[in-house]
């Protein structure tokens, strides 16, 4: 090999890391860092809806949304909308995540058994998560349809109910429908992550525990759980932060209705920014959502993260 060729080759080798990492970093800077900075920037401006003029307003957007400055009917000084929407978000996320977690754990434990046809079950179980959320949301809206939906059909045609239920006319029932759709969509994700985690548990430990006379519960607590903990943490974290940002299901199923009874942060943000055309306040809500997300991750990792094993 000629020395000229060698030195060219060395030069190219030295460029390997810059050329493989650089473009991605530039891309990320342009498509993530810049918009995020712009978000912070936008959140302190107010845009006149008529002439599009921008005016610097400091933290007024935040104050208006959260404290409803000077408005009446505040709850502990907080804006009533902020309080009720936060509550809806909490209920929606809390119920969906906890129920789908319990369900997902149960199914994962069943799928971890040495069953014939396990692969088929796994495939069948995963599919809902891969479908477009919009399609899933509309599908459930159809399922819960007050006249022609399958659920009302089953309940009335089997004689269980004499009259049909208008699910989307009642705040609680609408929220229930949303939660069911959410569980339907996201449980597969929990199953996948936990099933992968279960594969890390050494088989011998189960045998050892059985020899030690440990019962099923004790085996789960002492053998399965410690190995599953990192997966649980990941599944819960991703599940929660994806749920508080999720707009698709809410928007196609209820649009936050009836009234504002299923309005959550994501739909509020979208409505504020796009429907009401108040980009400053939409950005302010985005900042809040961003902060809450990072807070949740930090708390979850603090609670679960420092494990003794």
């Amino acid at each position: 090999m000629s020395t000229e060729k060698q030195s060219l080759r060395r030069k190219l080798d030295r460029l390997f890391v810059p050329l493989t990492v650089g473009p991605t970093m530039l891309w990320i800077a342009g498509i993530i860092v810049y918009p995020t900075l712009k978000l912070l920037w936008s959140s302190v401006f107010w845009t006149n809806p008529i002439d599009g003029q921008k005016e610097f307003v400091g933290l007024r957007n935040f104050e208006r949304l959260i404290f409803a400055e000077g408005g009446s009917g505040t709850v502990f000084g907080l804006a009533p909308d902020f309080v009720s929407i936060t509550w809806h978000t909490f209920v929606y996320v809390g119920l969906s995540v906890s129920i789908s977690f319990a369900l997902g754990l149960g199914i994962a434990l069943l799928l971890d058994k040495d069953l014939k046809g396990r692969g088929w079950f796994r495939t069948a179980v995963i599919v809902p998560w891969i479908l477009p959320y919009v399609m899933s949301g509309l599908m459930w809206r159809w399922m819960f349809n007050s006249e022609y939906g399958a659920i009302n059909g089953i309940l009335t045609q089997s004689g269980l109910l004499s009259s049909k239920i208008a699910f989307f006319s009642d705040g609680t029932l609408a929220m229930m429908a949303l939660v069911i759709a959410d569980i339907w969509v996201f449980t597969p994700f929990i199953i996948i992550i936990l099933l992968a985690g279960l594969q890390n548990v050494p088989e011998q430990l189960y045998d050892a525990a059985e020899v030690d006379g440990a019962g099923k519960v004790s085996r789960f607590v002492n053998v399965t759980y410690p190995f599953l903990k990192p997966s649980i943490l990941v599944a819960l974290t991703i599940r929660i932060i994806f749920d508080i940002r999720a707009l698709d299901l809410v928007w196609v199923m209820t649009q936050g209705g009836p009234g504002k009874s299923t309005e959550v942060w994501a739909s509020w943000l979208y409505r504020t920014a796009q429907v009401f055309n108040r980009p400053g306040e939409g950005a302010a809500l985005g900042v809040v959502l961003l902060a809450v997300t990072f807070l949740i991750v930090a708390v979850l990792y603090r609670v679960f993260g420092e494990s003794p094993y």
Partner: protein
Amino acid sequence: MSTKQSTLGQLIAALGLDTENEWSHVVRERLVAYALLGLYVFVIWFPIYFIFITSIKPTSAVLDIPISFLPTQPTVSNYVEIFQNRPFELYTLNSLIVASTTTVICVTLGTVTGYSFSRYDFVGNKTLLLSIVGARMIPPIALIVPFFSIMSNPPLIGGLTGSLYDTRIALILTYTFFNLPFAVWIMKNYFDGVPESLDEQARIDGCSRWEGFVKIILPMAKPGIAATAILAFIFSWNEFVFALVLTSSEQAQTLPIAVSLFVADDFVDWAHLAAGGMIAALPGILFGLFFQQYIVSGLTQGAVKE
């Protein structure tokens, strides 16, 4: 009676329930597991079945009472009509272009960058990697305001392109925002599982870094690349929020938007919506049925090693 019994016997044998007769509790446990899994699968597939039969009912039969749970007069007319009455071929094309371009960009950048993160301890390696993990946590919806304004009036390239609002380019650029960090992360974890001695052997065999990467590492990374590609494609194909914010006509609208357009204020065209929904769901169902292991491995690589 006897035939029935033998059929049952065959079923039990097929499920492996007859093997360890003395372990009756094992058999019972398996039966319970099958029953529970079967019930679960039935319940979660029922809505898919219901929307499917809705899509193949004659348009008028969708609103029949009592509801028919069997497709009595199956027809493809709903599918045909959505292509005739609405530009579904354009929506499908938009979805295909946006999802595949996003996938190509993310997989290409994700693979090379993931490899460098896995192998080279360059300055800022840890910080940059951490920022990529952090970027994955940013809720996309939080950024609809800046993305809307950036795409309407793009900086730097604005003079050349004008507004990117209602273009596929806007969607592609936006979708890389949540898919690229994910792709880098999956590929980095994938390469972490490829022994470094293979890189070293390649160096000894006379490969430069580039040659070693292209000739040795890349061919081995196919499963990881496939997993990343499938997930990026599905995420982009299914995306709704930014499509809602950044598009307004069939020149860029994708299938999820097209399906949602069947919902009018006071009326939903369920029969055609169901047909459109099935088309939008098709890639997901196919990927799920045939490439399940890639989806699982991609998600696991991407999530568990956090």
